């Protein structure tokens, strides 16, 4: 069980990290928080957005605030799996075959335009995301902890791309988008001499060790049974919706519980409330749902369906324990 002191310490850390990142990414605190939630929950983030909205800046700022290593991989159709994971090379000086780690060996990996790479390369990355090890020539190489992949995907200009299959989308803990900033924030960004987008100015306010220690502890945060029943009811709700070909999986719901724990702690609570679940449901679940063909043609989105389900399923009534 996690106590209030620990939670408030986490909240402080979360706030510090958020503040530091916000120095570079203006006016997107909610997205920053979500990315941090994914990091503490041990998951990965898929950012779906048009170019130029700060995806890369966000990933690098998080890495900067964390004090960890950040790498970036630009996915292209000719990118090979070994370009991502690393490869064994012969070292003439020692006369031995040595593993040269690829860009995934970092705390924050920015996989830019992941849908442009071939399926083989994508699955190499997804495997690392799931296994957290790279196996080359029978030898396992662990990636550092914490390990957060921020993949981006351009929802327009889809010619010559390989869309991530549903099963693989499921590997991402959260899918969200950054979107354009508000007018004031945009002016702030545009103003000459603005600190926005300047990664060098992001202060390092934590360490990978601190983050991973919290990450383990937060999974002990209290989730009351009515909340679990509510989450289960939401899952059933998506599975029985006629507009969906595929509802959310049990893994998806489990992820939702995990995210809700971190999200609740980030709000300074040592327990999860229904509002946490509702707040976090769309980024966690929407990309795991698959629409029927008719729904796609009628222009419905999975977020809309999920919103319907949320407004249909009654929240657990407050009851004395």
């Amino acid at each position, binding site marked *: 069980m996690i106590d209030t002191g620990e939670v408030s310490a986490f909240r402080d850390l979360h706030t510090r990290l958020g503040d530091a990142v916000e120095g570079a990414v203006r006016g997107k605190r909610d997205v920053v928080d979500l990315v941090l939630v994914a990091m503490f929950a041990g998951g990965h983030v898929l950012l779906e957005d048009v170019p130029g909205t700060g995806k890369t800046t966000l990933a690098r700022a998080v890495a900067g605030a964390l004090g960890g290593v950040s790498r970036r991989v630009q996915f292209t159709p000719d990118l090979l799996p070994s370009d991502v994971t690393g490869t064994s090379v012969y070292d003439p000086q020692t006369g031995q075959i040595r593993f040269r780690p690829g860009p995934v060996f970092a705390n924050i990996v920015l996989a830019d335009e992941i849908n442009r790479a071939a399926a083989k390369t994508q699955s190499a990355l997804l495997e690392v995301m799931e296994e957290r090890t790279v196996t080359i020539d029978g030898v396992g190489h662990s990636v550092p902890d914490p390990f957060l992949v921020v993949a981006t995907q351009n929802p327009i200009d889809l010619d010559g791309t390989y869309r991530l299959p549903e099963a693989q989308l499921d590997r991402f803990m959260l899918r969200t988008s950054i979107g354009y900033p508000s007018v004031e924030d945009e002016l702030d960004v545009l103003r000459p001499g603005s600190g926005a987008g300047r990664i060098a100015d992001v202060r390092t306010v934590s360490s990978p060790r601190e983050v991973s220690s919290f990450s383990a502890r937060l999974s002990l945060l209290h989730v*009351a049974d009515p909340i679990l029943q509510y989450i289960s009811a939401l899952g059933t709700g998506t599975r029985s919706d006629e507009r969906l070909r595929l509802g959310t999986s049990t893994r998806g719901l489990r992820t939702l519980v995990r995210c809700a724990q971190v999200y609740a702690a980030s709000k300074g609570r*040592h*327990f999860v*409330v*229904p*509002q946490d679940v509702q707040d976090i449901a769309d980024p966690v679940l929407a990309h795991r749902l698959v629409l029927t063909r008719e729904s796609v043609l009628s222009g419905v989105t999975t977020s809309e369906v999920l919103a319907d389900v949320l407004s249909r399923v009654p929240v*657990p009534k*407050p009851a*004395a324990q």
Partner: protein
Amino acid sequence: MKREAVKFAWVSALLLVGALQLAQAWDGAFVYFGLAAFSGFLALLLKRFVPAGLAALAVMVVAMAGGFLMAKGASPDRDPTWVLLDTVPRLLTAARPAPATPELLVPGLLLIIGISTGAVLSVTRRGTALFVPALGAATLYVAAALLTTGRADSYGLVALTMVVVLALGWLIIDRRGPVVPPAVLATALAALTLLTFVLPANGFEPRKLVTPPVTDIAISNPLPQLASWAAQGETELFRMRGPEVPVRLVTLSRYSGASWEAASTYGPLGVVDAPDLPLGGKVQDASVDLQITGLQGEWLPGVGKPQAVSLSNAMVDPDTGSLVVADGLRTGLSYTVRGVVETPADNDLAEAQVPVDVTKYTALPRLPFTLADYARQATQNARTPYEKAVALEQVVRLNRRPDAEAPVGSSYARLETFLFGAEGESGANAGTAEQFASAYAVLARAVGLPTRVVVGFQPVPEQNGERIVRAADATAWPEVYFSGWGWVAFDPVSGNGSGPSAASKREVLNRLASTTAKPTPTSLASVPPLVQPSAVAGDAVAAPAAPKSFPFWVFTPVVLLVALYVARTSRRLRLRAAGPVGAWNEVLDALQLAGLRPKPSRTVPDVGREWGEAGARLAVVVDEAAFAPRPANDEQSWRLARQVKKAVRRKASWWRKLVWPVDPRPLFRR
């Protein structure tokens, strides 16, 4: 604190004015009502320990119980519940002002206690602070106006005082700006109601809306008994002490053409409405002690118009003043009667008029022409009603002799025989007081004089401080009603009687004699009587009708409302004890009552946020209580919930606010 004191002083002043105004409907009840006006402060004391609604309920229950006990004490032999339920119709039909007996005070006191409780408790709240006392004062004023038909405040001074006090309250206490619209509306309505009672003093009589609590008693008519009394002669009937006044046994005002009938509905003495024709302008009180020694039957001898009888089971017909004892007279019964005797001077009557719209006292169903014509001829020279009355007295008396052996009856046929019968015919020109009085009454009615017949006893001389009344003293006499002077007795048997002086009658007769020719009947037996004589005592003792059972179902809504209120209050107490979750349920109740029930898929913070700071804070506490591993019990939650509730209530429409405390819907919410 000072503000509170001003508020309470204000509401006390308002209640006191209202209570004292209402007290005018009773005879000497100012002290009781003045004290009752402050009973609301009792609820205020209780409110420290229990919720306001419960405190008010407790005070009302105590008051009702007190009323119940008072009713029980007042009439120990009757079912107290019945007595209590009966008090309102009884009060509405009581004399004005009502005597301050416990039974009659109960409804007024309960009304004041209820209003006082509501008003005092309401000033401790903010929103309704000035509205409820205003409504309460208006209710008291209207009640007073109803009970006194507006006479309590004939010049509108009390109404003016109330309006001034109300206005002062609004000016001094409530400075929140424009008065809330419902208050304005209610005040306007109240003012309008007040006006309708203040302005026309002629019209509305609430007593007419209520059936007085009367008992139907069909009692044999004692007129035919006059003959048997006359035959009994010296048999002693009763003894009396007091002034020399005629004793009345029963007054008969209905004539069917075949016989005279007594009233058949009787109410408790002293608490029934005024008579249909008002008392005369000059009256005297007369009080006699009587002791029954031989008289039988249900009729109770009395004097004048009875005001008080020392027997608790005596009942009276308010119009005639006839007294009855339902279970009959018995030998040895002694009691005191206080009555009012009308004593007009001779001069008063000379020019007095008679009311024209009293068909009850001038009704002569199917009057034979002979009688009508005889009456017309007998009075053709008389100018005034008094002259007609005196002329008829002489016409009936002259050439006729009292005869105890004469046939009984007062049908048209018997009266025609009595008046026009040929010599030798049985009962011609001879009769008992029954025929003399009946003939006079029929003839007087025929010329438009409101007349009735009284059966009673002649005044007897005093012996050793006692007057012994014997059977031979029994007699009957007619009475004529003169506007402004009341019922005046005439004596067609002897010409003397207790009515106008002989000198005055002689003066009238002398004046008439110069022009009057004695009327003679034109056609005697040739005119068949239109009404066949029937058995006179035929309508003797019928079984008294069973008293109508009180429609208790009219209280069902009240009981239902009280039950709902209690259920809602106990739910609130339960929720209050249930900590933050209970507090949240209370908020949900309020939202439901206001018609703003949130969708079940909305979370607590989402709903709470809409109701400001308090709502947001409450939501945090509630979520913790519901979902945290070891919730801390937060004492603040109920206070926050009440703040939210207030905010919610402000949004509710007026009719939702009206049914707020008794709306059962939260009871069924799961």
